[in-house]
């Protein structure tokens, strides 16, 4: 009896490990930037290229930095949700227009609606690298002190918004 108990125990352990391993998403790389100050940048604004924006301008506010591009297909997936959020005034959303062409980006916003307070232009993707961007869209929740509190890789879903982003933003506002 004891003879069979050991292999059975090892088998169950192995199944447990495999079950956990198979349910992990290897595409989701945990960002080392969560809990760290948002990297600084100084970039031109999409609609007013002579104006510049730095993240310090948003000090004292809890806000979302959404990395997007007109060539990005999954950005279209989350876009209606962002537009709805901006209509309700839930959180200020700023856009980081990543490796895009100015006219394409503006046309895209005209077509699908512009949920952003403003978008900044990261034409060569350098700021994207500073933020550890590897797949667009990506969204960062940044608190009043300018610290990144949450990172969403891939489109924001209603579930992620309601279960993670909004409760965290509420808590951070207090």
């Amino acid at each position, binding site marked *: 009896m004891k003879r069979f108990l050991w292999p059975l125990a090892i088998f169950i352990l192995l199944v447990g490990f495999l079950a956990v391993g198979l349910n992990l998403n*290897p*595409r989701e*790389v*945990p*960002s*080392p*930037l969560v809990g760290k100050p948002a990297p600084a940048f100084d970039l031109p604004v999409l609609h007013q290229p002579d104006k510049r924006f730095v993240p310090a301008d948003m000090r004292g506010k809890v806000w979302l930095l959404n990395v997007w591009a007109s060539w990005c297909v999954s950005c279209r997936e989350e876009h209606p949700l962002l537009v709805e959020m901006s209509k309700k005034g839930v959180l200020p959303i700023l856009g980081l227009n990543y*490796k895009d062409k100015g006219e394409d980006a503006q046309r895209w916003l005209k077509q699908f609606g512009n949920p952003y307070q403003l978008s900044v232009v990261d034409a*060569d*993707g*350098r700021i*994207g*690298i*500073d*933020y*550890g961007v*590897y*797949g667009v869209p990506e969204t960062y929740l940044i608190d009043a002190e300018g610290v990144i509190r949450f990172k969403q890789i891939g489109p924001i879903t209603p579930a992620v918004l309601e279960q993670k982003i909004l409760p965290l933003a509420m808590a951070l506002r207090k």
Partner: protein
Amino acid sequence: MRRLLVLVLLSLFVFSSMANENKPVDIQTEQRIRQLSEKLRCLVCQNQSLADSNAELAGDLRRQLHEQVAAGRSDGEIIEFMVQRYGDFVLYEPPFKSTTLLLWLGPFVLLAAAALVLVATLRRRRRAAEEPALGADDKRLVERVLGSAAPRREHDEGTR
């Protein structure tokens, strides 16, 4: 005419040797960048290194490598730059720290456990084999009961 030819050939030789003098430096930096980009994972196509990947981000990151090497940064500083942004995941060889303890030591622990089991099993088997089928007392008893009819020793061994 002949002098001109010699001059041209000589100048060719000089220029080509100059070109050769420049090359080794370039090859060295190229090799360094190549080695660095082989240590780093492409985040987009995760089973390729930066060196092998054609993804656009991999190109951008290779450009970063070039720029930082040109700026005179050390390999350690460049790796640190990548880890700060993309985490340990960007490294093909995970660092040795508390969260990766199981990863690094696990195989050795398993090996040691397997070796212990093997030694224990072998010992148990040898003990079982060494133990005579009949003890000395048993043999005396057999001889007393059966007397001369008791099998001889060689025979006894043979049937065992």
